[in-house]
């Protein structure tokens, strides 16, 4: 085993861990006023890691990837692609945070540090090829996330969100661990490749329960039905930049992790996991759509929207082909842009005193008071609903294409028909913004950074996004191929 190579392969995580620890010390001595500096340095660290991840992705000498640390960690195109997406989401979450917290006077240097640690955890999740690396990465991310959710200490909702997340997250971790121990007991190893070689043919009850529990634990992390209950509460209670982070980066990481576990570790058990994924996918689509209809809080609504989108993503996984995984990766890119965009729009919903607004009714008639923000909101909503010509359609197109190619026609037909239910609440938001009389609650802000980011994301999901297909499609295809 070549340690030099192992260290090179893990460079993105090493950079982030080291900078996270140094910045933690800076924060300890620098106090609250160092928050801005630490944010900037954290963004720089993320850019550094992104540079390495993109090097791994594009440099042909890394084309086939490689194992590090005796098969605990794997550097490949799939992991690097997911990391780039995660880093991008983390960077945006860092950029948008200071203004939000500054207005309430609660910006603390711990925020960027925690984001960095969460990102390290996510990097490990997407590169894990061993159940133990997987668990450590997952917990590192989750523990940082619990604290992030309750980072506004004197806000009841924020504390409540953190606690809820912690209790339910621990339960899920317990299930996952129990599942891992069962799988380990029957396979004799925690390594994905050994599990795949050992667990073949018809499974006896023990390993079957193990597989189901592992999938249940992972379903919690991607907030798929029936393990979605925490999502609306946590998304609503957590500060909006944190919610934007939760809805984007950890979701990418958890989905990539689920894909790797299913394809690498349980790849020989297709019939076992496929029915679970098909059920979870359809249940998420339907419940995410139906439960969102009655919501009055925009953050809760977006939480259900993310559950709904996870359902569509899982259709690509249910196909179980390289095409399906590549479709998921492309969908994730679009999903991150749409989600970050809509949450930044939510952050811009403030009254004249700068107090954040979250109710749907405060959006009424936004198109007449702030036409630009309203148009961006509408673009994100139509795009999340998957209405062409907006780019959100393309993600759905690809996963359904993969499902049809894999011969799963009933899944595709039911899934796409259920997407119409979802369209209802998305167009309801557009209706509130465009058709209703102005409520006049939302003030003009003139935040250049936020508006710039909203514009960027809106442009990415506008029809212009289709021009990126020739660039992104080969990359996602190679990344997906790395798993097979």
């Amino acid at each position: 085993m070549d340690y030099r190579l192992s260290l090179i392969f893990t460079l993105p995580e090493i950079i982030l861990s080291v900078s996270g620890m140094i910045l933690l010390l800076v924060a300890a001595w620098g106090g609250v006023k160092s928050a801005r500096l630490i944010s900037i340095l954290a963004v720089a660290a993320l850019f550094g890691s992104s540079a390495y991840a993109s090097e791994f992705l594009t440099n042909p000498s890394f084309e086939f990837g490689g194992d590090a640390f005796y098969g605990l960690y794997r550097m490949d195109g799939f992991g690097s692609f997911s990391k780039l997406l995660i880093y991008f989401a983390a960077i945006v979450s860092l950029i948008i945070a200071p203004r939000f917290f500054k207005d309430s006077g609660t910006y603390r240097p711990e925020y960027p540090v925690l984001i960095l640690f969460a990102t390290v955890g996510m990097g490990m999740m997407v590169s894990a090829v061993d159940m133990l690396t997987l668990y450590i990465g997952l917990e590192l991310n989750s523990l940082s996330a619990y604290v992030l959710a309750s980072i506004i200490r004197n806000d009841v909702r924020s504390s409540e969100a953190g606690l809820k997340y912690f209790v339910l997250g621990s339960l899920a971790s317990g299930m996952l661990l129990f599942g891992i121990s069962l799988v380990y007991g029957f396979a004799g190893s925690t390594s994905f490749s050994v599990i795949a070689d050992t667990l073949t043919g018809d499974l006896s009850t023990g390993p079957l329960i193990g597989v189901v529990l592992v999938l249940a634990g992972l379903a919690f992390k991607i907030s798929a039905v029936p393990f979605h209950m925490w999502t609306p509460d946590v998304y609503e209670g957590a500060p909006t930049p944190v919610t934007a982070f939760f809805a984007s980066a950890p979701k990418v990481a958890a989905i990539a992790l689920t894909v790797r576990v299913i394809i690498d570790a349980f790849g020989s058990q297709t019939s076992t996991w496929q029915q679970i994924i098909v059920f979870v996918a359809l249940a998420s689509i339907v419940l995410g759509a139906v439960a969102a209809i009655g919501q009055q809080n925009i953050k809760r609504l977006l939480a259900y929207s993310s559950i709904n989108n996870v359902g569509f993503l899982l259709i690509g996984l249910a196909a179980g082909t390289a095409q399906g995984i590549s479709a998921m990766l492309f969908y994730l890119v679009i999903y991150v842009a749409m989600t970050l965009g809509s949450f930044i729009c939510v952050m811009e919903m403030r009254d004249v005193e700068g107090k954040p607004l979250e109710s749907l009714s405060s959006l009424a008639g936004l198109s007449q008071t702030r036409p630009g923000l309203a148009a961006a909101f509408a673009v994100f909503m139509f795009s999340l609903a998957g209405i062409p010509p907006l780019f959100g359609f393309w993600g759905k197109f690809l996963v359904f294409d993969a499902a049809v190619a894999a011969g799963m026609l009933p899944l595709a037909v039911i899934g796409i028909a259920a997407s119409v239910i979802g369209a209802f609440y998305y167009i309801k938001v557009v209706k509130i913004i465009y058709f209703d009389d102005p409520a006049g609650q939302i003030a003009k802000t003139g935040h250049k950074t936020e508006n710039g980011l909203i514009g960027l994301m809106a442009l990415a999901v506008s029809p212009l996004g289709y021009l990126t297909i020739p660039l992104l499609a080969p990359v996602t295809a190679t990344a997906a191929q790395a798993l097979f």
Partner: protein
Amino acid sequence: MNQLDFPILSLMLGLPMLAAIICLFLNAQAARLLALVTTLVLFALGIVLWANYDIGGPQWQYVERIELFGNFAWALGIDGISMMLIMLTVFLMPICIGASWESIKERVGEYMAAFLFMEVLMIGVFAAQDIFLFYILFEAGLIPMYLIIGIWGGANRIYASYKFFLYTLLGSVVMLIAMLWMVQDAGTSDIPTLLNYDFAPEAQTWLWLAFFASFAVKMPMWPVHTWLPDAHVQAPTAGSVILAGVLLKMGGYGFLRFSLPMFPEASEQFIWLIFALSMVAVVYTSLVALVQQDMKKLIAYSSVAHMAIVTLGLFAFNRQGIEGAIIVMLSHGLVSGALFLCVGVIYDRLHTREIDRYGGLSINMPKYALLFMLFTMASIGLPGTSGFVGEFLSLVGLYKVNSWVTLVATTGIILGAGYMLYLYRRVAFGELVHDDVKAMPDLSAREMALLAPIAAAVMWMGVYPESFMAPIRGDVGTLVARIDRAAPEGDAHLKMGQATAAPKGHEAEAGHGESH
């Protein structure tokens, strides 16, 4: 590249798109002017398109293809049928902008942008040569129409806009799955290639049903037509014109472009379904139209009845039927658009569409009454107007297949005369009883300028339909040759000595000749 050596179709899509974006930033009057100028330029480009169209030349003309999007291409090209529908679009658009000139006072920039965007999508749907490009443009029309109905519509606009959006979305999503399957089976998303690809007959059944779900809603066919009256009544006048004039034609175009040539066996297999639904539509919606109190609703129901004639003609599987159906589509686009404009004219004056509130308009609005009369007659299908040509041809084509269905369909013409004349009598004739109606001025110059071109086109199509039939003749021939193998046998078995030599197109006279 094509006969003009520049990508005219891309230009026709890019120009209104650009203008739509600019409109968002302009004040009301500038936005109106820009929209009018853009739509007039597009009309001029449409004339260039028609003038340079090579009748009898290659099937697909003005072809452009750029492999822009990986999985699908920016592929455009038109045949005669597409060209006539594009002409209909670019002809109606300036009229729509003119119709909204005074009645739309709020958020004019956004309104004009929505209409220009709509025009991009409509031209794109008819010109797309890639099945996924078609789907994207076809579906994208939901967004601007949803906004047009929802923002500038009537009192119950929210309900109507939701119904329109969800109904049509539900109809077309399954079509996407069918398209994905087709492209995987055939290995190409190129429409001209798919047109000649033979899908397995058992697969055709399912594919046909998936496409039918979409086009039947868009068309709209009974019983999935219920979104139409709501959408029409609530939409602003110009929105109704576009909806009736062009959007409904997308359903017929879909049957013509996809269902028939791609799945001929399945089309024959489901002919009973089309005939049954269309027969119900013709009779039922005509009767419903007869009892309407709201003018727009009446015309909306009459649209459903007319569209049923289109489906009957299309599924007759012969030249007369299909040519007739296309002419009915064009004619209905003009006539129903004009009728909605006529309603808009008096709605702008009195702000009600209640039929009983009017009466005696021929006394104080003679010009209006004259034009309204012309469009009423065209809607009925009076010889000399466009309606007659299309309906007659469709019914002749249908008669060759099934005389009983023709009998039922023909009652639609009689009922159509019933409800249209009844409407006209109540609005234009009788005494001027209401004082506010008495005070209504006759057509302004702007309104004359909107209605007169349509009146001219309706007469032209009625008197010399050859201008409109010539470009489509070759393409209908190709289509008939393609579906001929599945054509149903007619129910009329002529027992004449040497009947086989009868030239095509003269069957209608055959019965006449017997009596001599």
